[in-house]
């Protein structure tokens, strides 16, 4: 199968993730959409790796997974602490600071 198709799929997933970040209101869901974007990047990297016949892209994909895991640790810690003090994980409710 032509690897270019995987690039279309990766772009589609990335766009879905980005749209989700912009329109969803729950911090956890927003965060999941960001993870979807990172995974779309992984798919693109692996597809390009196949096209070029070198391993750089696959290695970056491994690094991305580790980074995504580290981001989950930090992100959930922050979001959970916000939820425990406000009883809401909505990003719209977090508006103490406005212009």
């Amino acid at each position, binding site marked *: 199968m032509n690897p270019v198709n995987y*690039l279309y799929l*990766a772009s589609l997933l*990335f766009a879905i*993730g*980005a749209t989700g*970040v912009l329109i969803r209101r729950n*911090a956890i869901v*927003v*965060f999941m959409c*960001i993870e979807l*974007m*990172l995974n*779309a*990047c992984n798919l*693109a*990297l692996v*597809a*390009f790796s*196949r*096209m*070029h*016949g*070198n*391993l*750089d*892209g696959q*290695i*970056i994909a491994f*690094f*991305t997974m580790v*980074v995504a895991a*580290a*981001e989950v640790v*930090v*992100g959930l*810690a*922050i*979001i959970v*602490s*916000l939820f*425990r*003090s*406000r009883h809401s994980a909505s*990003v719209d409710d*977090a*508006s*103490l*600071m406005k*212009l």
Partner: protein
Amino acid sequence: MSATAVHSLWTTNGLWATAAEPVAKIDSPQIEYSLIAPTLIVIGAAILGILIEAFVPRKSRYYVQLFLSVVALVAAFAAVVALAADGRGTTSSGIVAMGALAVDGPALFLQGTILLAGLVAIFTFAERRLDPEAHGNRVDSFAAQAASVPGSDSEKAAVRAGFTTTEVFPLALFAIGGMLVFPSANDLLTLFIALEVFSLPLYLLCALARRKRLMSQEAAVKYFLLGAFSSAFLLFGIALLYGYAGTVSYAGIADVVDGTVQNVNPALAGTMGNDALLLIGAALILMGLLFKVGAVPFHMWTPDVYQGAPTPVTGFMAAATKVAAFGALLRLLYVVLPGLRWDWRPVMWGVAIATMLLGAIVAITQTDIKRLLAYSSIAHAGFILAGVIATTPDGISSVLFYLGAYSFVTIGAFAVVTLVRDAGGEATHLSKWAGLGRRSPLVAAVFAVFLLAFAGIPLTSGFAGKFAVFKAAAEGGAGALVVVGVISSAIAAFFYIRVIVLMFFSEPKPEGPTVAVPSPLTMTAIGVGVAVTLVLGVAPQYFLDLANQAGVFVR
């Protein structure tokens, strides 16, 4: 290369088929440990700091952590100076660690700046005399226990027990370690990893304020979500550039962009004709970097995060993050994408103009001193971008000088903000600063010096920096940018002067804030800020020469 040939690279009949030999075929990577010593020292100390959290008794952790951080930063700075004295920044600069890192003038200059700024920021982190003692324990700007809910019994118990979040020191060291790698990253993977290594600790540091914890947590959530969002864009840009060039090393991509690449295989011939990959990829990577810099239209996080984060962290972030991010931006634009100059220059023109004007104009309407400094930092990002656009050697050196001058002023200014306090912690509303000059002339005068430096008044470092970047921009053919820059400097001067007028020429309010007397730690931070401001303002030549010598990227 055909699909089957590619396939055989990592499956049967390829590398692994002859079981006896393959181990000998994989060369162990050559790492020049002495050349990347600054980074190794800082990261090593950060790891040691985590062990200290685990094993050292709670009472003595603060002292051990502070000592370790200061020693590590000083040692790393000494290593940078030794490398520079060895000519690694000028004559014998080179690519190290299998092409992952560049050791050259801009990298060493910015690493030195980040280390010094980080050292001064660590002093403000360690300040324990500003808040009144809680139950007989000295407290700093950080939450007693970050995990406890604000206002809950567990928080009260933590305060009563005298807990402090000494984890801020290793977190800051990790952030500094990432920042040291960021401007010297020489391939896209290292760029991405360094970005995450310095961003993740910063997200956590933002959430740790002792006072106004809800605001602090909110700032952290906003910074985290937007930061992760922007780094996802950066990563997709990396994927596209990798797809375009078939390599992630800066020099390799630059060769493909310039069209000087040797050995074009069929796969590369297919992708390097596809300009969409190059343009979209470069745009997405620039987006990720401009977000970290805080340039319009990717600036939305700056005011909220600067306001909500603990003030020492804000100072650290505003100074060191900007230095690291501009270093990476410079290297990307000057080493990887010079062949694409005619495409990115118009875009960066627009970004720089929007950043300068919006930062300066919106700052006028601000009523909170931290938000005001945040918008001022956006305007300054615009001024620095004007130097970046010059695409001349002068452009590099002027940006280096500006970053060095700006970072110390910023840390000093935020350190002064921590001193002005009322019952609720820091009194950041501008109305409370009225008449501060009558009540405590020294603090107000020091703050006035910083504001004048931000405004770019002669005899301060701000003037020397602005003059250097505008001169470089004008000579680089961006005269119109300089005009916009001068206009927005004038607009910005209005609100800096307004704060000075407010401090010195209005009546102090009866229930106004008090000015805390800090320990020598914060005094050092503020003193260094004032000293750098005046020295770089009165006699900038030595440092301009230093930046000039350092202003050549290795490729």
